[in-house]
């Protein structure tokens, strides 16, 4: 008898999916209605908004959608208050206080405290804003507690700008520019780097560090005004504006 109950429970629980949206359709549900502004060409979706399409899913409390000619002809989407989104097709997900998606420019922007954007294997966090432009292949993380975690690198800084390149179907970081008036951090498998400004060039396999530079590797700590790390050779050099100022500390860890 239990088997039959389970069988009919399965049928009952899947009942609603039989009447759900068709392939290619976008279904939007709201608790508190939709306001359509025809001349201004946008509509407001209010309270517990859920957007489900083949490529994209979004939840938020207030969503403003700008359209070109008709309601389906979407130009830009701005969602606010507890926004969660994901796209399995583009391997992207995130959350934040505000989410903007410009369809024409293929640009995603997440703002607010504890903003998150996960793009394939790259994880971006910030209390300010995170922007990814798919057409230009660029990203920008700006604000306090900004952080980027990739497969083999962790970066913190106030501004993290970068370029993504498509490498065998996967997007990988090609160039990086990191700035922090206090101190930025770059942590690789065996090296910790600190400075006020840094550049990473994947093609040249180098990380350049400027101002208040500290490089830690094992028991070695080297400080100076400029540092360069060769990621291929895994070697580094630190220099100073005043050639006598480079400081090396080798501590005995045994």
């Amino acid at each position, binding site marked *: 008898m239990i088997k*039959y109950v389970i069988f009919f429970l399965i049928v009952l629980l899947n009942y609603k999916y039989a009447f759900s949206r068709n392939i290619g359709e*976008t279904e939007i549900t709201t608790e508190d209605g939709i306001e359509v502004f025809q001349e201004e060409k946008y509509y407001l979706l209010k309270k517990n908004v859920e957007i489900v399409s083949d490529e994209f899913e979004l939840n938020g409390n207030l969503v403003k959608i700008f359209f070109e000619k008709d309601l389906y002809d979407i130009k830009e989407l701005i969602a606010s208050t507890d926004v969660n989104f994901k796209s399995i097709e583009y391997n992207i997900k995130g959350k934040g206080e505000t989410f903007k998606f410009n369809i024409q420019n293929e640009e995603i922007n997440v703002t607010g405290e504890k903003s998150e954007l996960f793009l394939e294997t790259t994880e971006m966090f910030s209390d300010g804003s995170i922007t990814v432009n798919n057409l230009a292949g660029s990203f920008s993380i700006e604000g306090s507690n900004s952080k980027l975690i990739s497969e083999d690198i962790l970066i913190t800084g106030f501004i993290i700008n970068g370029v993504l390149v498509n490498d065998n179907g996967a997007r990988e970081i090609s160039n990086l520019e990191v700035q922090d008036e206090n101190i930025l951090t770059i942590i690789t498998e065996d090296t910790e780097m600190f400075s006020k400004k840094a550049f990473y060039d994947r093609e040249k396999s180098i990380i350049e560090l400027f101002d208040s530079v500290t490089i830690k590797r094992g028991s070695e700590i080297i400080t100076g005004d400029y540092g360069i790390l060769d990621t291929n050779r895994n070697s580094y050099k630190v220099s100073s504006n005043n050639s006598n100022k480079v400081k090396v500390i080798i501590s005995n860890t045994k």
Partner: protein
Amino acid sequence: MNFLLSLNKKIFLIVSFIFIFFILFIFSLNFFESNDNSENKFYINKKTSDISEPKFSINSKKQKISVTANEGNFLTEDEIILEKNVIFKSNKFKIYTDNVVFNKKTLVASSKDESKFISDNTSIDSAGFDIIENGNIINFKGKTKLVLK
């Protein structure tokens, strides 16, 4: 063995019968409830309507929305209630509903009944709507579902 193949045919038929009976029972309950509502509406409509098949339009600079219904009754000097098969039609969309209060002075139309908006590749189902600013703003109220194709 496959789970479905292991089900006993007789018991399966009996449980299926109970299941179908249960579904039919729920549907018939819904049917009688909606019948009750329509009966109430019927009593209201039994009286002769003030306007038979009213037809007018809401005009703005950019669009003209024509409004039709089966019946219309004056609520006040400025307010008309449009009943049965009320349709708002412009060159861009159509809205179908059953009860709309229209203010001929402010040109505001308001409905608290289930409404369906249909436009190119778009449909909206809502629990009512307001049309304000000569049709520039349409406010779909309550739980709303928008489908874009």
